[in-house]
């Protein structure tokens, strides 16, 4: 199924408002999806026999920069039987306050792989996934402060009495 066919399929199933836009400039075209409906879109793309995106290659958390005040998540789906790939992007505005994390629906109910991917995005970029069964840090120690891959992250001076900087 081509990119255009997938677009058509999604807007027929969920209405045209589910696709906010598209990016075709990159190596692979991407669909910008309405953030709150990403889980149902993934479920449909996985279950529909015409698309059958049965494999979640990766989830990436994105910090679009301090001026943009925007966080996003990129989903790379792959269909093993059809040998096709699809990129989905969602993003929301956020004031970068650590008490107000950008939030997206979790897709762990669709792809079990998403569990650790979402934990990694939470750990390093500080993105909250609503409905995730066990959203803890995965790489850094549990008592780490802040999210290191955010653009405004400042390294602390000490961690448990050990100086961090060289």
């Amino acid at each position: 199924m081509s990119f255009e066919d997938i677009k058509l399929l999604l807007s027929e199933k969920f209405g045209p408002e589910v696709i906010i836009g598209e990016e075709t400039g990159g190596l692979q075209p991407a669909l910008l999806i309405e953030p709150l409906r990403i889980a149902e879109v993934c479920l449909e793309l996985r279950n529909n026999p015409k698309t059958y995106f049965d494999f979640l290659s990766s989830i990436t958390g994105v910090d679009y920069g301090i001026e943009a005040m925007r966080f996003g998540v990129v989903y790379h789906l792959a269909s093993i039987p059809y040998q096709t790939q699809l990129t989905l992007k969602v993003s929301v505005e956020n004031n970068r306050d650590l008490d107000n994390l950008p939030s997206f629906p979790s897709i762990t109910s669709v792809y079990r792989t998403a569990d650790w991917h979402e934990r990694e995005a939470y750990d390093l970029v500080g993105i909250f996934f609503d409905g995730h069964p066990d959203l803890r840090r995965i790489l850094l120690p549990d008592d780490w402060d802040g999210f290191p891959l955010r653009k405004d992250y400042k390294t602390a001076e000490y961690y448990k009495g050990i100086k961090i900087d060289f």
Partner: protein
Amino acid sequence: MSSEMNDSGGVVITKMNDLLNWARLSSLWPLSFGIACCAIEFMGAFASTYDLDRYGVFPRPSARQADVLIIAGTVTFKMAERIKRLYEQMPEPKYVISMGSCSNCGGPYWQHGYHVVKGVDRVIPVDVYVQGCPPRPESLIGAILELQKKIEGERLVG
């Protein structure tokens, strides 16, 4: 040390100090513990080409049985706590070899590595540093010989 042989058997005369040092330096058992790519060279040093066993260096799976802790790889802050605990579990006398740039000083992560301890000597005391990224097995063997020299000069008292 000097030895005399007669019909009833051999006699070895030595100083207690020398005997202990000789025993310690001839059986440096490292903990089989690797954290990053340096561990590949560490394993290579034990394999048939370099055969560290000929120096009495034989890896132990338990910190309780180990004499030397070879820090072979990048020490993250999460791992630093575990390394400290392993070091504390080792019986005295114990020695530490810091193997490779990462555990010497943070290596390639010295500037932007928020998660890397800039030198394992910020966590535990180090006896011998091995430079390289990663060091070849010859360098590690060199460090073990260097550690043996250090042990040779130890004294029981004073």
